[in-house]
């Protein structure tokens, strides 16, 4: 047990003071209070309040945003979520096309980014020579720090103008094929489209997913890898047998973190999606997404219901990212428990 030997006044465990009563020390030696006790309590109170600020902010966000969005939910009812007619001039606020666009664009981003991210992470942990590992790690982390508006700028001015020819090529290549034919299409094929936004998002979330995947792969016990090698496995067989199964939880969490980032990304998407809400599986056509609508239409939303409808989109985004965040955390917790059990 720890005790204050240097100071004769309080040869008691500091913990007991806190749990028992504050009257005890003052009665000990008249005016001479133990010097650290009050400070201890104040510090405890201060850090407690600091921690609680998080809860206060989240509660305030939820309360104020839902409160502000209520007029839209009230006037539109369920059609706020199920209708795709967004016509502020006639006070119709259906958000389905925006949620569709957000989900589609994030989906494209993940389809493109996940295999690449896992590949890079496997390369840095299992394949690369040791001298190369740190530089690659640093590089990827540095790229994760590039602001999203810079990706947006590049996407708008460099990537988007270069894409239609490529899209046209794909369109011509698959024009007869049943599903792919209509997927690789647009009406018309546009520079700023679902696909362009998806590509820009993929470039953005790749460093994020990569760093989580790398951390996960690094936790695979060396003994398991050695065992696979000892059984005669090639490098790829070792990765499939030892590394990937062990990392399933961590990878899922990393993908969900990337998804959360893609769902909420505003500026990069707003610049390259085309801002034309539609529910269509034609990936090369323009669309719109929830976060970009808020950013682009916020300024003119003078009408109460209009503004409420945009804040309502914020509430939807908030709720979706909460669900994704909670899921990611739950998976990490389970993966931690599993890793703890096997290691």
């Amino acid at each position, binding site marked *: 047990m720890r005790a204050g030997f240097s100071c004769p006044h309080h040869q008691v465990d500091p913990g007991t003071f806190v749990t028992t009563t504050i009257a005890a020390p003052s009665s000990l030696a008249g005016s001479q209070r133990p010097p650290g006790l009050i400070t201890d309590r104040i510090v405890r109170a201060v850090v407690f309040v600091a921690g609680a600020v998080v809860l206060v902010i989240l509660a305030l966000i939820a309360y104020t945003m839902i409160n502000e969005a209520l007029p839209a939910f009230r006037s539109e009812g369920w059609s706020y979520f199920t209708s795709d007619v967004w*016509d502020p001039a*006639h006070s119709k606020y259906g958000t389905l096309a925006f949620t569709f666009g957000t989900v589609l664009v994030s989906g494209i981003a993940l389809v493109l980014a996940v295999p690449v991210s896992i590949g890079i992470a496997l390369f840095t942990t299992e394949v690369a020579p040791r001298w190369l590992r740190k530089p690659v790690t640093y590089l990827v982390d540095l790229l994760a720090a590039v602001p999203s508006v810079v990706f947006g700028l590049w996407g708008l001015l460099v990537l988007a103008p270069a894409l239609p020819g490529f899209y046209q090529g794909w369109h011509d290549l698959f024009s007869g094929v049943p599903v792919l034919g209509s997927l690789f299409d647009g*009406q018309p094929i546009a520079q700023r489209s679902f696909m362009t936004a998806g590509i820009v998002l993929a470039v953005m979330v790749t460093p994020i997913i990569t760093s989580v995947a790398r951390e996960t792969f690094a936790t695979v016990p060396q003994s398991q890898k050695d065992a696979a090698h000892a059984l005669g496995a090639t490098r790829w067989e070792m990765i499939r047998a030892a590394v990937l199964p062990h990392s399933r939880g961590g990878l899922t969490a990393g993908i969900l973190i990337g998804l959360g980032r893609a769902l909420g990304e505003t500026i990069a998407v707003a610049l390259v999606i085309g801002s*034309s809400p539609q529910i269509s599986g034609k990936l090369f056509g323009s669309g719109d997404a929830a976060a970009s609508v808020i950013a682009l239409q916020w*300024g003119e939303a003078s009408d109460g219901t209009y503004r409420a409808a945009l804040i309502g989109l914020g509430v939807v985004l908030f709720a979706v990212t909460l669900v994704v965040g909670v899921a990611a955390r739950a998976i990490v917790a389970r993966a931690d428990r599993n890793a703890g059990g096997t290691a």
Partner: protein
Amino acid sequence: MKRSRARMLVPLVLTIGLLAAACGSSSSSTPKGDKGGSTSPTTAAAPKLAAATLNGSGSTFQQAFDEAVITEFQAAQPAVKVVYGGGGSGKGQTDLQGGLVQWAGSDSTVKPEDVAKYKGRFLYFPTVAAPITVSYNLSGVKLKLSPQTLAKIFEGQITKWDDAAVKAENAGATLPSTAITVAHRSDGSGTTANFTKYLVAAAGPAWTLGTDKVVAWPSGTQAGEGNGGVAQIVKSTTGSIGYVDYSDAKAAGLVFASLKNASGSFVEPSLESATAALEAATLAADLTYNPLNATGAKAYPITSPTYILVYSTQADPAVKAAIKGFLEFIYADGQKTATTVDFAPLPKAILTAAKAQITKIGV
């Protein structure tokens, strides 16, 4: 030893902070000295105004004009800081309602049901006018369009450039079979409001989307923010067509269509054809007017007015004086500036009425 290393970081961080502060103070103090010297002779006679800041936002249609005028005004009145943030007419109106700005730029009038949302009575000050061009990206074609065909293109009923309706109005032109990409505004826009207001008036039943700062465009279109954003799409996309203010379209090197006006002649957008349309318009008591779909052989049919909105009551005397000074400047030197950035100055009748209205501020 180890701790001292950690502490070395603290001065490093502090240094960055100090550098930041140094940058801040130097950049905020330099500019005024630069500009004081270049005061133009015509405005030197005006009394110097007290220090005030006039924040403004709104219409990007008038932005180039406002920016040019502000640059000159600041040279004449260095103590007054005038800011124009653009963002669209909708944003200007909303910001004025919220008291975030002292003045708003708007090309459209405030809807009657919104008037109650303002923090008091506000005044319209018409500043300049300009054509809204129908700009397109088709090499080697000089396009002529009737309002009906224009409406069908923007509604998505005509999807190819070699459509029969377009061909009929452009006999002799070689129209490609390229798909038409319609470009419009993503933000709430007075340009959209005036463009659609024109289509409602001129195209009749062919136009079904109505008129407002935001309309429900058909899917498959492209949207850009501000007139600059639409110009950017038209400039970079082959086969595209969009509506852009004359000043931006001209400066961006876009090609515009001639439109069939109410008198049946095809007119190209220009300052002269805009002035012809303005002269036909009648001024309302609140100084709003409607030059859209004007008659006259030389009148360009989509000529748009543009206004500055200010509250008539101004609590801060310095701000009041600054607003009055700024408006007076617009109606004097500003009208000359207008043509240099491709805006049409106001006709005499409107100008006189607008000048007279300045006295209503702060009464």
